[in-house]
C-alpha cells in the first residue's frame, strides 16, 4: 500500500511538474514579485528603492481621483457587460437551439467575431465608427448615424460596449448552447404535457438545468470585464482626456508613461486583483448554491 501511494504521488509530480514549473516561472514568481514591489517606491530603472509600507495603497485610494474615476468607469462597464453579454448570449443560444436545420450555420456566424483578436476588432470598429457610419449617413436618410461615436465621452462608452459585445457574445453563446443540449428532453416533454407555455418551460425547467453554465459564464464575463484593456485602447485610447479610461489603462499609464512609478502601479494592480477576487468569490458562492442536478 505505501509503495503504491508513493508511486501515485511520483507519477502525479511527473505529470504536473513540467507545467507547474513554467506556471511558477512565468506567472507565480512574477506575481509575487509584483506584490513585493507594491510596497516600494521603485521607478523601474533605479537600482535603489526603499520600502514605504502601505503608502502606495493609501495614495491610490485617497489622493488619486484619476484612479478612482477609472475604477468607477470600470465598474459601470462590468455591470453593463455582465448583464448584456449573458443576456444576448442566452437569447442567441435559445434561438439557435430551436432551429434544427440551420443550427451549424448560425453558430459559426455568431462565433466568428470571437476568432478575431480583440485589438484588431477594435481597430476595425474604429474605422466603422469614424468612416463608414458617417458615409452611410451621408448617402441615406439616417442622419443620427453621423455623430462622434468615439470622440464624444457620452457616446463612446456605448461604442465600447457594442464592440465588446460583438466580440464576446459568441463565446458565451457556445457555452450556453452546450448546456442547453444537456437538458433532458423528457423533462421538457413532461412540462409540455402538464400544459406549460414555452416561457414557463424555459423559466422553470431549462434555466435551472443550465445554472452551472450560467455560473461559468458569469465568472468569465465578470473576470474579463474587469480586465478590459484592448477594446478601450484600440477604440478611444482612454480619451478624450481620461473620460473612458479603464483601470488597467490607468495602471499601464502609471507604470509605462507618467513618472514610471512601477511600485505605485504594482500597488494599483494588487488592488485590482483583490477587487476581482472578492467579486468572484461572492459570485461563485451565490450561484453555486442555486445549481441543481438533473
Amino acid at each position, binding site marked *: 500500500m505505501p509503495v503504491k501511494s508513493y508511486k501515485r504521488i511520483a*507519477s502525479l509530480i*511527473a*505529470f504536473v*511538474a*513540467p507545467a507547474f*514549473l513554467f506556471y511558477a516561472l512565468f506567472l507565480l514568481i512574477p506575481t509575487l514579485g509584483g506584490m513585493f514591489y507594491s510596497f516600494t*517606491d521603485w*521607478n*523601474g*530603472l*533605479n*537600482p535603489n528603492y526603499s520600502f514605504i509600507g502601505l503608502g502606495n495603497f493609501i495614495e491610490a485610494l485617497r489622493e488619486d481621483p484619476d484612479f478612482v474615476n477609472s475604477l468607477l468607469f470600470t465598474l459601470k462597464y462590468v455591470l453593463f457587460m455582465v448583464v448584456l453579454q449573458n443576456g444576448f448570449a442566452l437569447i442567441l443560444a435559445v434561438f439557435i437551439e430551436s432551429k434544427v436545420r440551420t443550427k451549424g450555420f448560425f453558430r459559426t456566424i455568431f462565433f466568428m467575431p470571437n476568432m478575431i483578436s480583440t485589438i484588431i476588432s477594435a481597430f476595425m470598429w474604429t474605422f466603422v*465608427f*469614424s468612416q463608414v457610419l458617417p458615409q452611410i449617413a451621408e448617402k441615406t436618410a439616417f442622419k443620427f448615424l453621423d455623430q*462622434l*461615436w*468615439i*470622440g*464624444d*465621452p457620452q457616446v463612446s462608452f456605448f461604442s465600447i460596449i457594442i464592440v465588446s459585445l460583438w466580440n464576446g457574445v459568441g463565446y458565451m453563446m457556445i457555452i450556453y448552447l452546450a448546456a442547453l443540449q444537456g437538458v433532458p428532453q423528457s423533462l421538457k416533454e413532461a412540462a409540455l404535457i402538464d400544459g406549460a407555455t414555452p416561457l414557463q418551460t424555459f423559466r422553470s425547467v431549462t434555466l435551472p438545468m443550465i445554472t452551472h453554465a450560467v455560473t461559468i459564464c458569469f465568472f468569465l464575463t465578470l473576470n474579463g470585464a474587469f480586465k478590459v484593456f484592448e477594446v478601450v485602447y484600440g477604440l478611444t*485610447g*482612454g*480619451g*478624450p*482626456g*481620461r*473620460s473612458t479610461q479603464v483601470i488597467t489603462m490607468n495602471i499601464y*499609464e502609471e507604470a*509605462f*508613461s*507618467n*513618472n*514610471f*512609478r512601477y511600485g505605485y502601479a504594482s500597488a494599483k494592480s494588487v488592488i485590482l486583483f483583490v477587487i476581482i477576487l472578492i467579486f468572484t468569490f461572492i459570485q461563485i458562492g451565490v450561484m453555486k448554491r442555486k445549481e441543481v442536478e438533473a
Partner: protein
Amino acid sequence: MKRMSKGLLCSLLAATLLAGCGNGNSGSNNGNAGSTSGNDGSSGTAKSVTLKMFIAQPRFKEHYDKYIADFVAKEKADKNIDVSVQLEMPTADNASQILKTRLASNDAPDIFAIHAVNEIPSYYKAGYLEDLSDQPFAGKLLDSVKPSVTTTDGKVVALPLETLSWGYLYNKTIFTEHGLTPPTTLTEMKAVVEKLKAANVTPFVLSYKESWIPQLVLPLAVGSMVKTKNPDFVAQMNKDEGSFSEMKSAIFDVFDLINENGTAKATEVGGDDGAAAFAAGKGAMWLQGPWYAETILKSNPDLDFGVAPLPVSDDPNATLINLSASTSLAVSPTSKNKEVALDFLNYVLDDQASNAFFQALKFNPVATIHTYESYPWINDATAYVKEGKSVQDPAIPQAVKDEVGKGLQAYYAGQLSQDDVVKALDKAWKSYNKVNK
C-alpha cells in the same frame, strides 16, 4: 507501459528545454570571457573585442550595418583591434523596457540609444551614462544641438543622432495663392485665419485623437515664455514654486484660435489621418512637427509645405522654433570595452564618413562637419534658427507632457475648463517632483 513512456517523454521534453536555456547562458558567458581575455592580450597580436550595441531603429538596419563594417575596418587598420559588433535593434515600442531591464540587471550594452530630452535626466541620475565631455566629437556639435544632450551640471553624456526643429506645418501653395506669409504675432495669425476663412479654406487641420498631438502646444508656449518673460519657469516648477497659471494665456490664446478654426471631429482623427488631411489640402496649417514629412509626402508627393514658428502672443520675439533632440547614443560606464565604444562614437561624427551616413539616414545636421543639402522644410526652420528665433525644448517632465495631452483633449471636448487643466498640470509637476526628489 504506455503511461511510463509518456512520463519519460514529458520529462525528456522538460530536460531538453532546460538544457536549451543552460546552453544559451553558458554560450553568452563564453562570449564575455572571450572578449575580456582579448583585452588583456599582448600588444603584438591583434586584440579581439566584442562590442554590444542597442539601437532601436530597425528601419535603418542596413545603414547601420554598413557604417559599422566601415568602423570595424578602420579600427583594424588604425589600432590593430578585431572588433565584432553585436547590434541589437528592437522596435521602438518596447526598446526602452528592454534597455531598462538590461541596465537594472547589470547587463548593459556598451553603446545604447536613448531619447535625449525624455530619458537623459533619469538615466544620468541612475548613473548609467558615461561622461563624454572631453571626447573629440563633443567639440563638433552645433551650438543649437549641444544643450539637449548636456546635463544640468554641464556634462555632455550622449551623441545626438536625430534632432528636431519644429513649430507648425503650413501649406505653402495655399499661402502663396492667397498672398500670405507665416504670421509673427497672434494678431497677425488672426488676420491670416480670417483671410483664409473668407476664401473658404479651413485654416487648421485638427487631429486630437492621440493625446500627444494637442500636447505639442505646451513645449511651444512654454519655450516662448521661457525665452521672453519667464526665464526661470522650469527651475521654479522644479522647486514646487511656480504655476502654470503664468502660462495660461500663452497656451490657451493660440489653442482656442486653432480649435475655433479647425476641421471637424478632431477627437476621432489620429496623426496619420491628420497627415492625409493636411496633404490633401483640407487645412492650410497643422499643429505638427516635420517628423510627419514622410507620411505627408507618401499621400501627396507634390505637396509644398514649410515649417514656421507658432505665435503665442503679440510679442514677435516670442514666436520661436523649438529645438530638441530625440535618438542619441550613450556609452555605459560599466562597459569593458570603453575605449572601442568611444572610438565608435567619435567615428559617428568622423570628418569624412559622417556626412554620407547622416544624409543617408535623412537626419538633420547635428555637427559643424555636416555640409549636405537638407530638405526644404529643414532649411525653413534653420533660417529661423539662424535669425535667433529659436529656443531649446524646455525640460518639461514626460509626466506633465502626458497630462497636458489628456487635459487639452478633455478641454477640447468641453469637459475641463482652462483652470482645471492648469490645476492638473501643476499637480502632475508636483507629483513628478515628489517622485524624483
